[in-house]
């Protein structure tokens, strides 16, 4: 197929769980590579040594600022990519790497890890630990429609990606506290339960219908806030769930 976009996976300090989630789209991933995107860079899946020009860079992991090569690579990624996507919570918010204190052989001085947004401008966040295969799939299809689609597809992709772009603008830190500060304290929580479902470490329960977070368990992944229907709810996209789900499924058939 002509007009495939150039897709890359850039591996910073992450556990490869995000890449596994990409691959967990199984035939959907193969279909994306067949029809919509060439995987031009991926340490694990493509034999390319240096960061090439990319339309969309999926960056996994945070950046160790004591590792010169990582710092150079993330800057190069920004310079060579049209769209930089923070794939997963480490790239978006630091996540579990926030708790690193160094002291690991053979580079014990590697102790400070920052989400990529502290070093470069990021266009889109896909939070999650790991990010769900379905969200990665949706963003990949939308990115293709944005860059290569017709006018309608571009308009849809634009609307769809907007809240994930807003998350990227919002900041580089995350915590259960976001739900307290920006949802509960703001009088917006209605006890639907979504946050508890999204929490990868089961740190959120509901007491009398309201979320309670065990903050010592929180790994700072930002899933609860991103998933909450009262953090963002775009009436020009979500109510069209039936049509949009069909479009995405159709693209991957």
């Amino acid at each position: 197929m002509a007009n495939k976009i150039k897709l890359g996976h850039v591996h910073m300090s992450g556990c490869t769980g995000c890449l596994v989630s990409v691959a967990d789209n199984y035939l959907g991933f193969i279909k994306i590579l067949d029809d919509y995107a060439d995987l031009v860079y991926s340490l694990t899946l493509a034999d390319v040594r240096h960061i090439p020009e990319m339309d969309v860079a999926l960056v996994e992991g945070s950046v160790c600022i004591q590792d010169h090569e990582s710092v150079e690579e993330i800057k190069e990624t920004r310079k060579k990519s049209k769209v930089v996507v923070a794939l997963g919570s480490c790239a978006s918010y630091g996540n579990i790497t926030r708790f690193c204190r160094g002291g690991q052989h053979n580079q014990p001085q590697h102790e400070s890890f920052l989400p990529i947004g502290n070093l470069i401008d990021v266009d889109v966040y896909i939070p999650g630990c790991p990010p769900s295969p379905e969200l990665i799939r949706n963003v990949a299809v939308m990115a293709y429609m944005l860059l290569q689609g017709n006018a309608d597809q571009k308009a849809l992709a634009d609307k769809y990606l907007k809240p994930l772009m807003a998350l990227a603008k919002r900041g580089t830190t995350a915590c259960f506290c976001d739900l307290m500060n920006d949802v509960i304290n703001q009088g917006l929580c209605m006890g639907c339960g979504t946050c508890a479902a999204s929490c990868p470490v089961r740190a959120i329960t509901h007491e009398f219908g309201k979320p309670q977070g065990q903050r010592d368990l929180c790994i700072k992944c930002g899933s609860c806030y991103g998933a909450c229907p009262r953090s963002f709810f775009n009436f020009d996209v979500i109510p069209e769930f039936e049509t949009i789900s069909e479009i995405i499924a159709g693209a991957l058939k």
Partner: protein
Amino acid sequence: MIADPYLGKYTTCVSARSTDKEILQKAQDGGIVTTLMVYALEQGIIDGAIVAGKGDRPWQPRPFVAMSREDLLKARGTKYNISPQISLLKEATRSFGLDKVGVTGVCCQMQAVRKAQLYPINMRDVPDKIALAVGLFCMENFPYKSMQTIVEDHAGQSLSSVKKMEIGKGKFWVYTERGNVVTLPLKVTHKYEQPGCHVCLDYVSNLGDISTGSVGSPDGWSTVFIRTKVGNDVWSKAVAEGIFETKPIEEVKPGLELVTKLAKEKIDKNRKTVEERKTFGINKALQNPYT
């Protein structure tokens, strides 16, 4: 397909009642949700459903995954306080191993399901496993302690003696096991409403596959909106098999006119609240989820 600014998109709207006598015994109105989920379970359309069962205290709901008719029947009736249904959305696919999940809930919970489908943030395996989402009409919800205040302090009844509660004809009704019936004007209950409900812009669960509630239909019947292909498939099969009796909504009183009136009241009032939040402080706005 009809697209109404207040009632959302739907293909059909009818007044309906379950033909299952056992379900109707303890149903809130027409027994629609329980009957639909039992039917979907027996037909293999779902493997189980997230419903609001009994919690630790009287009238406190607790979401659970029902996997049999018996389980589903335990969740009959409206509880009028918060049940975080969506907390089990991923759990249903994991610990319970469901491939086809049924979900019941109020308007905001239908919104949550659809957001989880289109923006599955840490919602692995959820988007493609939602097999049937049935939403309830909802004007507002109450925190548990609010409901306790309404029933015990205002209506003067012990919660554990209450057989049924309902909101209808402009009043909050409390029925006890021994036959007391207490009504409260809604102006008494308004201040106890959950604040988060006041920014909600949906009254009849516009994002359910099917949505239902008492408003618009005669006593013992429910108004039912069929909204999606999934909803239409299940509903038409169920009706063809005699699971429900139905009447055209145009032929019942008070009908769609009242549904529209109440939807407009809720949504217009809450739109105003969302607007007022923009100038809540001095040059300081409160968060707006809709921008």
